[in-house]
C-alpha cells in the first residue's frame, strides 16, 4: 500500500481537477452563444428579436439558388427546415458551390433576408478522389 501522503496528494489532485473541470464546463455553458461560430436558419427564425450586430449564418447552399447578376450574388442558405435569402457582392471562395456548406458573415435585414459582407466555404469531412466520386455518381 502507498503511504498516507501519497493518497492525500492523489485525493487533492482529484478534487482540484474535478473542480476545475466543473468551472470550465460552467463557463463554456454560459458562453455558448459566443462559442458557436454560426447560427442555422432555424435558429435565426427562432430569435426573439433581430439584432443589428454582425452575425454569421451557416448551412447548405440550396440547389439551383445561386443567381449572379452584375457583381451581386444571390443565394439561399438552407438547413433543410428553414431557409434564408443572402445577398453578397464580392469574391466567393473556390469551394462555394450549390449543395455544399457555407458560412456568411454580415447583417440580418429581417428574418428572411441577410446581407453578407464575407462568404466562407465550409468543407465537409469527406475526402474522395475525383474518379471515385464520378463512379459514385453513376450508381
Amino acid at each position, binding site marked *: 500500500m502507498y503511504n498516507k*501522503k501519497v493518497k*492525500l*496528494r492523489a485525493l*487533492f489532485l482529484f478534487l482540484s481537477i474535478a473542480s476545475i473541470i466543473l468551472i470550465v464546463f460552467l463557463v463554456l455553458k454560459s458562453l455558448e452563444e459566443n462559442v458557436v461560430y454560426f447560427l442555422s436558419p432555424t435558429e435565426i427564425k427562432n430569435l426573439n428579436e433581430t439584432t443589428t450586430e454582425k452575425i454569421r449564418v451557416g448551412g447548405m447552399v440550396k440547389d439551383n439558388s445561386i443567381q449572379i447578376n452584375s457583381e451581386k450574388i444571390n443565394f439561399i442558405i438552407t438547413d433543410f427546415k428553414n431557409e434564408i435569402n443572402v445577398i453578397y457582392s464580392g469574391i466567393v471562395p473556390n469551394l462555394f458551390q450549390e449543395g455544399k456548406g457555407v458560412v456568411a458573415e454580415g447583417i440580418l435585414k429581417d428574418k428572411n433576408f441577410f446581407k453578407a459582407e464575407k462568404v466562407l466555404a465550409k468543407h465537409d469531412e469527406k475526402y474522395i478522389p475525383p474518379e471515385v466520386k464520378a463512379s459514385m455518381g453513376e450508381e
Partner: protein
Amino acid sequence: MISEFFYMNGYGYYVLSSFLFTLACFLGLYLITKSQLAKEQNKFNVKFGELNSEQVKEAKKQKIYKEIIAAEIYSKI
C-alpha cells in the same frame, strides 16, 4: 511535367509552402536539440578530463539512475 508538379492546378503555392514550413520546423528543432546535447556532452568531457585517476574511480561508482529515481518525499504538496 516538373512545372505542372509545382503548379498543382494553382494550389502549389499553398501546398509546397505548408510542406516547407513543416520540414523547416523539423530541421530547426533537430539542430537546436542537437546543439544543446553537444554542449552538455562537451561540458561532461571537460569535467571528466580534469579528474585524477582516483576521482575517475569514484565517478564510475556514481549511479545516475539512483539519483534520478530517488523519490523525494515532502511533507506538503
